[in-house]
């Protein structure tokens, strides 16, 4: 097969996630019931988003240390696919919230923090669109991207932990402690997270390659 090993691995892990995620045993929890399985899919979107935005940050820093429009392109595409994954995470979370917390949107710090972070990245795309010169655009948006990433970490990973949250792993508790995730679920959860991160990176890879082809055909 003429394809990278990690892409094939991602495909296998996605199928494993779907089969084991639906057929594996899960703890019997009140209110959540079978919906606990959403953990394998909903949380996967956030892991994918975080991984892509981390990739975006790396390429922004790379651009600032050595200006190269390909780094800028990679940073931009990772940010936009991460944004897409974030929207999917938000939508799946809203559906899940409606059936467990009773409302599509609660004033949970994690939800509001996520909304702010998504808006911060939306501003990144607006900022990019407002500049004509590619070098200026690349430099300014790279600096902004670092700011957006830090803001996102503070709003999603730090602040919800300091206050009470409906999400597990918040309100001072470490995420995915032994009470949130049992041994059986871990066997599906970790491969699932790798699978969704791999999926995000795969789409990013194809997007970047198409954009590079576009650049080389136009020049």
């Amino acid at each position, binding site marked *: *097969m*003429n*394809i990278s090993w990690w*892409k*094939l691995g991602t*495909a296998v892990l*996605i*199928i494993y996630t*779907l*089969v084991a995620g*639906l*057929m594996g045993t899960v703890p*019997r*929890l*009140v209110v959540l*019931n*079978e919906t606990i399985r959403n953990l394998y899919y909903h949380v996967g979107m956030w892991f994918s988003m975080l991984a892509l935005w981390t990739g975006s940050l790396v390429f922004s820093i790379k651009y600032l240390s050595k200006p190269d429009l390909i780094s800028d392109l990679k940073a931009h595409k990772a940010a936009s696919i991460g944004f897409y994954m974030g929207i999917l995470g938000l939508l799946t979370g809203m559906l899940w919230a409606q059936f467990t917390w009773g409302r599509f949107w609660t004033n949970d710090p994690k939800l509001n923090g996520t909304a702010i972070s998504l808006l911060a990245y939306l501003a990144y795309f607006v900022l990019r669109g407002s500049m004509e010169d590619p070098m200026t655009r690349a430099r300014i948006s790279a600096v902004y991207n670092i700011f957006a990433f830090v803001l996102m970490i503070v709003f999603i990973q730090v602040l919800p932990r300091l206050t009470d949250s409906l999400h597990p792993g918040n309100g001072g508790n470490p995420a995915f402690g032994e009470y949130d995730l049992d041994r059986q679920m871990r066997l599906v959860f970790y491969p699932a997270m790798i699978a969704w991160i791999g999926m995000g990176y*795969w789409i990013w*890879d*194809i997007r970047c*390659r*198409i954009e590079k*082809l576009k650049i*080389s*055909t136009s020049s």
Partner: protein
Amino acid sequence: MRSLHSHRFRNPLYIQKVFFALLLLATSITVQAQPAVEMADQFRADGKIRVVVGVIVIIFAGLLVYMIRLDRKVKKLEEDQNPS
């Protein structure tokens, strides 16, 4: 505070009794708690979950095959552009 120092709490047999009563209560709660939470047990027992998993796997396998084909098409374009 008087009641704490009453003879009943000094009696080891009494403490043992209370301890076992609590243990019995705890086990009965945990045993009862299991079926109280509603899960799709019947759906699984019927084997219908396999039908759902089957449908999802077919769709995702199809999408993943498409991803692989897309990837190879891009690779072909890259090779056409930069023949090495």
